[in-house]
């Protein structure tokens, strides 16, 4: 998987790259409009992470160029401007997703994974980990080839874990990703705990080989 990271802020670019490398992606960086355009014109990527405000031009212009060049790279806009207009325009210009800065890296990974999957596979998309299969198309799961009923939030939770198994996921990124910004930090621990307890129970009752482990004070990981 090859990802082009277009971000003018070197420190931010660096930390995103490290995180992507840890997920075993191939990452190339571009720090301004001309070099980004050059890279886009020459190479092909699976996914482009695009900052909107760039030295030498705007990310939205780059989006137009990508379209002109007839490329079919998936694009995720990373913008410090959390404005609805930018989001709408970006998506209209063919971006696949929009993430407002600052974001959780976990959230970025989730978005990249779902975009790449959407792009690479047509038809049913199933993620398998141990004896659990998650079908993201019809949002169903099977444990040991037997269907298990999960409600919407439980499915979202499981999905968030299963795309990055064994990784520590913080309760805040979980809460924000699944319940949006509405939840306050003070509540998130208990709230997430109760939701995860339900999910764990369902997994256990259906003899799944995996478990969601709590890492005290920080979050959870799927093992």
């Amino acid at each position: 998987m090859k990802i082009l990271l277009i971000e003018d802020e070197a420190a931010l670019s660096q930390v995103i790259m490290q995180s992507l490398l840890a997920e075993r992606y191939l990452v190339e960086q571009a720090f301004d409009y001309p070099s980004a355009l050059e890279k886009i014109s020459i190479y092909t990527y699976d996914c482009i992470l695009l900052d909107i405000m760039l030295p030498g031009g705007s990310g939205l212009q780059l989006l137009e160029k990508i379209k002109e060049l007839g490329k079919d790279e998936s694009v995720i806009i990373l913008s410090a401007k959390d404005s609805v207009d930018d989001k709408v325009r970006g998506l209209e210009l063919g971006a696949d997703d929009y993430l407002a800065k600052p974001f959780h890296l976990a959230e970025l990974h989730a978005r990249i994974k779902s975009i790449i999957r959407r792009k690479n596979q047509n038809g049913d998309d199933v993620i398998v980990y141990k004896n659990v299969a998650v079908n993201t198309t019809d949002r169903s799961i099977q444990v040991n080839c037997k269907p298990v009923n999960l409600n919407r939030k439980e499915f979202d939770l499981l999905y968030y874990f299963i795309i990055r198994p064994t990784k520590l996921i913080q309760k805040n990124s979980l809460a924000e990703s699944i319940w949006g910004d509405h939840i306050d930090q003070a509540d998130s621990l208990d709230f997430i705990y109760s939701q995860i307890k339900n999910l764990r129970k369902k997994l256990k009752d259906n003899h799944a080989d995996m478990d969601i482990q709590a890492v005290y004070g920080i979050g959870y990981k799927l093992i």
Partner: protein
Amino acid sequence: MKKSLKNYTLSYITIIILIVIAVWATLFYAYITEEVYDNVDDGLKNQKIEIIRAAYQDESILKTDTFGINQFKITKSNVKIKHIEKSTFRNELIYMPYDEDMEPYRILTTYFYGKDKQMYRLEIRTSTVEEDELKYDLATALIILYFLIIISIFLLNTWVFYRAFKPFYQILNKLEQYQFGKIRESEPIKSNVREFTQLDTEIDKMLDRNEKIFKQQKLFIENASHELQTPLAISTNKLELLLEDEELAEHHLITISETKESLERMIKLNKALLMLSRIENNQFEAIEKINFNSLIFEVCEEFADLIEFKGIKIKINEHGTFTIDFNVDLAKILLSNLLRNAINYNKSLDGLIEIKIDQHHFTIANTGKGRGLSADHIFDRFHKETSAVNSNGLGLSIVKTIIETNKNLKINYSYSDSFHIFKIQKL
């Protein structure tokens, strides 16, 4: 008590004119009576000369010893008088059959020698002004005059005020309608009075100056929040990477996680500030007809897990459909902020949220800890009633700012029957 400028000047004018008229009336009265007596006395003196002259020619006149039709009498006198030419005057009340009353008379008394060397005393009388009546008439006339003057001054004053002070009231009105930070559509006041145009331009200049400072301040907050985004993103993301480092001990991870949580609070605060700036800068322009009923259900659905988790009961009563032209994103933010508020500050046991929707208003009421809150400050930025850790103090101020984007909406807070009630109504 505060009077209007018009009545203020009028009240002074009324008093001053009263004093002026009173002084003037006294002087005028003294002068008039003086003049009247002077005239009467001149007439009497003239008569005296004519009577004495006539008495020399016709001695029978000397026998007129009572006041008859002649209005004079001559009596013999034995008094020794040095200056016989000297006339004395006195006033006397005499019965007058016409009026059936005593009337004032002016009586001239003088002495003269007749042809027969005999000394006679001559008294001539004439009806003179009734001072009482004069005073009375004068007073009546003056009172009428006084009121006429006051009325005409009042009318004149009103008219002049209306004409001359029109720009002044326009300026006043302009200031009354002025809202800080809102665009002014007023035109410069047209007036021929230099002071008014000056006042108007000075006020405009002052407002422009203040708004400029205000805008700079707003821009500063916006830029500062904006510039904070990247460093915040870098720090949290680096911490996030650190948390994935398997070599770190658990207590390190916990510290990192706590640091990250604090940073995330800052991110939320920063986002809220940016949100406020964006709302104030009218960056949510697209207006459409919004059905708040369905939006309320939608938002409640979003919060359903949290509401259930907190053991809060929610009741929605629809008595009508609340629709208004609004920006859909702002409407969602508005409702979720209100609902979040109702959830977060609810009782920890048996909490209740009641939403009532009517055609012209809707209310979101929640049970809560403690007493009613200060309605004056509840919407202020960074106002916190309790030391809630998870509150950034901006939620309700965002609500207020959103409400203010629509001139036809109003929000108020009240507390009754242990319910905190937020009421949004159309004006």
